């Protein structure tokens, strides 16, 4: 028994001496718990929040304003209804301006809801228009689902209780007749009896109970079909027609594993130091700077090749590249990403004292950056303050933004210059820090 205890004690001692193992065992999963907790359990709901929704109210009535108010109270959306003018004043959004925003800044604005002038022109029900850029199918489904819920829950009763839309008693009767027909068609029953129930209740009651509306909006096929007939949402996909949503996952995994492979490659500097290889190399004509730059170029090229291979693989599997015009910008953003990731790997190697430290620190930082930068899951799932104030500090964020701009929106070189510029600046800055650290550190001693 003593032997077993001694051996167990030995294993704990060895484990404790291996700081990488300790970090990977405790710190990394703790960090992931925190990150996923932030994502999935933030606030008092489990859904995304703060997704920008541009609302164009062409009706400009009290009721439409109230409907916009309902949308504004929905945590999922950050509703914008006005734009700033040059003279410091504001003006209501119009469809042209909102559509332009969607096209020119698709990273920030992906949804425009228009309450059109012909809101009530439909033969039956209400008209809405939705311009959207479904960069991510999950986000798109969530947004449209919640939009439907809000509209179904609030627009209909507002409409029915409003005089300003000019509903006469005849129109109400006609509406109730048609509605009872719709309900009978989808749910069964006698239209006459349903109509009689309406009369008995004063109205069919939807306006008095948002709960029924939520049911309608969230899902059962019969009710949603029925409500679908009441609400005509004309959808226009601004970007991504014919694109495969796999772009997000291909880009995400490519960037994340680029960071892993390059930080591993850079930390091989420690292996060479331990083996005495630097001593041997530096005894000849090579300099420390040449060793570091050669490592940088090797890692950069390896990263670029890795990215291109993964994009090719993604294309063969999912057809993520839809036009030859995407190739040059994709190459450029890949080069910038590989450079930034390589510089990150070099920085890790310069900060750590041993390869084990570099690997442990690397795992921690890469998972964090990937989570906050949108490589592990779409950014919209993050709380808004993380998307706004934390994500942009991750090089993954800029890499993903550039890659998706090319693959999803066919962005050209000029359009992704900001992302390329940020990545190159990040690469230069952290490489400078890394080189300074290498000079101060003991890699070559």
């Amino acid at each position: 028994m003593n032997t077993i205890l001694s051996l167990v004690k030995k294993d704990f001692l060895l484990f404790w001496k291996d700081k990488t193992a300790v970090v990977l065992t405790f710190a990394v999963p703790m960090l992931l718990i925190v990150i996923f907790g932030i994502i999935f359990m933030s606030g008092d709901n489990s859904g995304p929040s703060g997704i920008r929704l541009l609302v164009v109210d062409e009706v400009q009535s009290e009721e439409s304003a109230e409907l916009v108010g309902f949308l504004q109270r929905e945590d999922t959306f950050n509703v914008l209804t006005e734009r700033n003018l040059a003279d410091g004043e504001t003006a209501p959004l119009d469809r042209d301006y909102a559509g332009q925003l969607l096209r020119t800044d698709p990273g920030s604005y992906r949804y425009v809801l228009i309450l059109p002038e012909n809101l009530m022109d439909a033969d039956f029900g209400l008209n809405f228009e939705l311009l959207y850029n479904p960069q991510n199918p999950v986000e798109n489904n969530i947004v449209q689902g919640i939009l439907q819920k809000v509209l179904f829950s609030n627009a209909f009763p507002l409409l029915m209780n409003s005089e300003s839309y000019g509903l006469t008693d005849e129109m109400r009767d006609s509406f109730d007749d048609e509605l009872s027909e719709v309900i009978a068609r989808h749910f069964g029953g006698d239209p006459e009896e349903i109509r009689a129930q309406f009369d008995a209740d004063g109205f069919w009651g939807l306006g008095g109970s948002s709960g029924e509306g939520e049911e309608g909006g969230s899902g059962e096929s019969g009710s949603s079909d029925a409500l679908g007939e009441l609400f005509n949402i004309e959808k226009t996909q601004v970007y991504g027609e014919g694109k495969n949503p796999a772009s997000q996952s291909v880009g995400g995994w490519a960037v994340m594993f680029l960071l892993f492979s390059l930080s591993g490659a850079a930390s091989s500097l420690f292996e060479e130091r331990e083996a005495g290889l630097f001593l041997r190399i530096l005894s000849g004509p090579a300099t420390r700077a040449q060793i570091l730059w050669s490592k940088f170029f090797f890692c950069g090229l390896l990263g670029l090749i890795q990215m291109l291979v993964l994009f090719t693989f993604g294309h063969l599997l999912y057809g993520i590249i839809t036009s030859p015009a995407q190739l040059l910008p994709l190459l450029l953003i890949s080069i910038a990403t590989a450079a930034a990731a390589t510089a990150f790997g070099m920085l890790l190697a310069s900060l750590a004292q041993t390869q084990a430290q570099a690997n442990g620190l690397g795992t921690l930082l890469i998972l964090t950056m990937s989570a906050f930068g949108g490589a592990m899951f779409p950014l919209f799932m993050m709380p808004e303050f993380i998307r706004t104030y934390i994500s942009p500090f991750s090089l993954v964020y800029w890499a993903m933004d550039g890659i998706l701009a090319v693959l999803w929106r066919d962005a050209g070189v000029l359009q992704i210059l900001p992302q390329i510029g940020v990545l190159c600046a990040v690469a230069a800055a952290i490489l400078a820090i890394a080189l300074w650290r290498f000079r101060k550190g003991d890699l070559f001693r």
Partner: protein
Amino acid sequence: MTASKPILELTGISKSFGSIHALREVDLSIATGEFFGFLGPNGAGKSTLLKVFCGFQPADTGEIRIKGQPVAADDQQARRSLGLVPQELALYDRLSAINNLRVFGGIHGLGRARIEEKGRELLESVGLWERRNDRVKDFSGGMKRRLNIILPEPDILLCDEPTVGVDPQSRNAIFEFLENLNRRGLTILYTTHYMEEAERLCRRIAIIDHGKILACDKQDRLLADAGSGCEVLIKKAPGMEPVVEAAGGQGELIEEDLTWRLVPGPGLRLSRLYAIIEEHGLSHEHLQVRQPSLEGLFLQLTGRKLRD
């Protein structure tokens, strides 16, 4: 000192790590074609000296000249002529033997054709040509050591204890390889704490301890100058007490199982001891003089054994 032109010169080299003085005012001149040895125990400063040579660690003070030219710590051109064999097995063990040579040859600026030609010659000379395409990680320790010492075309080869942990067969192969290179004119600096290696290989030796060169000369001159480095063994036999008593005043007397060992001081007079033996009718065989050795010299210079 040698009459040949110096290929490597050190003047007043000092190096400290915090409060530890690794090198203290080292002056040295190595001639072209010389096989020069640094003999000292572990931690004496031998490896640090080589690292300073090759610029891996800059000296705190002093000057290094290679082929007459002063060399700054970051002067890569001047160090093009150096090749270092570190204590560690400094090899890319996932690469083959020939690919290792290609890597190091390329770093030293050799062309592909020259590397191939030289690679064959070098690998044959250490008996590894047949294994040239095998990965180094599959080599035995001795084979790795043999591969570790070959470098393509340096003018000065710096060997830092290249036989650590080597079997006798590989050690001999390494010795023969280095002797052969030196015969062909290569200058070799060799650090070791094995006296027998220094005695076999090096024509000139610096004895170093605590970062200071205690003695530096040709081996025979060192030993000659260390005449007092000889030892006198006095057999424990009846009637020898007056000899032991007299010897006690001539150096350090150490009692061993069967003998007294006299480590002579500056005033050694062997003739006085022999006279006492004759006075008492004792045999001369009771007194043996052991010739000076590098180990004895080291003991004399430092007061401790080489392998302490």
